[in-house]
């Protein structure tokens, strides 16, 4: 079709969608909508993962982000009863400044990020690396230490959230 392979089509569509949804996250007035758009973005990204042969990661991504994190967000928003369309907005000037600086960042980044291809970086690995087996091997050999220490991270987050979340006993 039009000289593009299916993968390329899929990549194009998913990219477009993810960018659109991402923009919607930023621009929706209602926080709940934002969350929903974010979930959609994440789905698109998961799709991209699949295109990159990272099947396991795609699944984990859906589970962790869309399943856990986003639900958490939604839960908190509901808890705070922020499901409104009239939430206070930043002054237009601020928005413009934010947009302009973001745009500038984009321009300079795009300007300076070129050159991946011409340097002959091409795929030379197998497409099997994204499989659970492969990942498991790497994770528990090379990355054993970070894996273990990540438990500390999670513990810390756990303890921290509990401590903060607890009602002050007076």
């Amino acid at each position, binding site marked *: 079709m039009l000289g593009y392979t299916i993968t390329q089509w899929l990549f194009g569509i998913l990219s477009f969608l993810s960018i659109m949804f991402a923009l919607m996250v930023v621009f929706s007035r209602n926080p709940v909508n934002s969350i929903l758009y974010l979930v959609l973005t994440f789905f698109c990204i998961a799709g991209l993962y699949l295109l990159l042969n990272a099947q396991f990661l795609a699944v984990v991504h859906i589970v962790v982000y869309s399943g856990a994190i986003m639900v958490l967000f939604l839960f908190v928003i509901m808890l705070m009863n922020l499901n409104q369309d009239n939430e206070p907005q930043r002054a237009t000037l601020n928005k413009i400044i934010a947009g302009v600086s973001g745009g500038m960042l984009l321009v300079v980044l795009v300007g300076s990020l070129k050159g991946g291809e011409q340097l002959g970086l091409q795929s030379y690995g197998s497409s099997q690396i994204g499989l659970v087996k492969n990942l498991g091997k790497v994770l528990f050999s090379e990355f054993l230490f*970070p894996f273990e*220490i990540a438990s*500390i991270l999670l513990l*810390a987050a756990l303890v*921290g959230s509990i401590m*903060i979340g607890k009602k002050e006993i007076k």
Partner: protein
Amino acid sequence: MKGLLIISGLGILAMLAEIFKFKKLLFPMVLLGVVAAYAFNFMEWKTGMSIPYFDNMIGFDKLGLAFSGIILATAFLWFILANDYFEEETNLVDHFALVLFALVGALMLTSFKNMTTLFLGVEIMSIPLYVLAASKKNDIKSNEAGFKYLIMGSFASGFLLFGIALIYGATGSFDLMQIRAFVSENSTTLPMFFYVGVVFMLIAMLFKVSAAPFHFWAPDVYQGSPTLITALMSTVVKTAAFAAFMRLFMVCFADVSAVWTGILAGVVALSLVVANFSAAMQNNVKRMLAYSSISHGAFMLMVVLANVRSNLSVNALIYYSLAYSLGSIAAFGILYNVTRKGNENIDAFNGLAKRNPSLALCMAIAMLSLAGIPITSGFFAKYFVFTAMIGTQYKWLLIVAVLTSAVGVYYYLRVIIAMYFKKQDTHEPLPIEKSNVLVIVLTTAATIAIGIVPGIVAEMFSF
């Protein structure tokens, strides 16, 4: 390495303390644990072991051990200082655990060998601190501090990650040594985005060490956080961040220094100006110390800038960290005691010389040390920086440094003037807890001692 394990274990132990009801024992245990960690650390340093652990994920070489030593020592002093702070707080155990976890992160930052450990170290150190900063639950300022710290920290993490990703993309590895080797082998064919990655990491690290223009979080967070947490941030966290900074840029990215030294020079100059000029305008002492910390950070950055991979600058950075940590611990310890009533403005210090002369003296020494007056350690720290800088092409930075240092003296002296010159309504003596006295006196004495005999420290590290 053993130190890291001990501290991690201690953290977990602390969590268990509540369940198994040995809260009373916890404090001595923690102290003991930190001492033990320090002892192991010291022994490893003595024997010169530099074994890379876990597939080069982490490796305590001499440099890392030196910084770890400073961090552990500061932490030890901090724990003593925090003794009664924990008694006040209800969530004693959580605090202990969080501080210890943050310490784990800090230790990782001194000795990471891989981008993964760097990233995890940064986060392990930061996340507990977000919580700790917000730990005064009913104090909206504390909440705000934690919140700001978190948002901006995460934002910076994004840049760190982006940088890591780009570097990974260009070199195909997360390992520092491999990256370095790759860079030196393919120096001409590196894609542009590798350099962007370096710059992004630089930006993220500059955020962590709070250099202008990425410093905005620091004053607010320092001010809002509970004083002792601020003390922790400005000592342990700062030291760790600089250790990481140095390892990353003086070791890993040394070969591409052309990319980042220019930026760094500009950032240093900007930080010096912004920090000192803003500090001069502060009435809140904590805020003032925050700016002071930015200014000291700029000095330490100068060392990084000065001479890539030279013993001189490594020494300078270690000495500077130590000197600054000592001065800060003393200053925050005193601040903590003086501002117990809630007034954190400089007039809280009014008439301190009358109310508690020895405390005032210690504060004066700490201030003089931070201002860099001989024979305090702060002077030698500055001296080492100057010495390192004078041989570089960035001599103009020295002029900026000198001029802004003079501004710096202004706000340090303000505290001294307040203590010795201004009148306070009350003349009742200001009582302090014995343990705090111990820490304050110890740090002050050490400030003078390593100021008089800097050789003790400076000659210790011959890399």
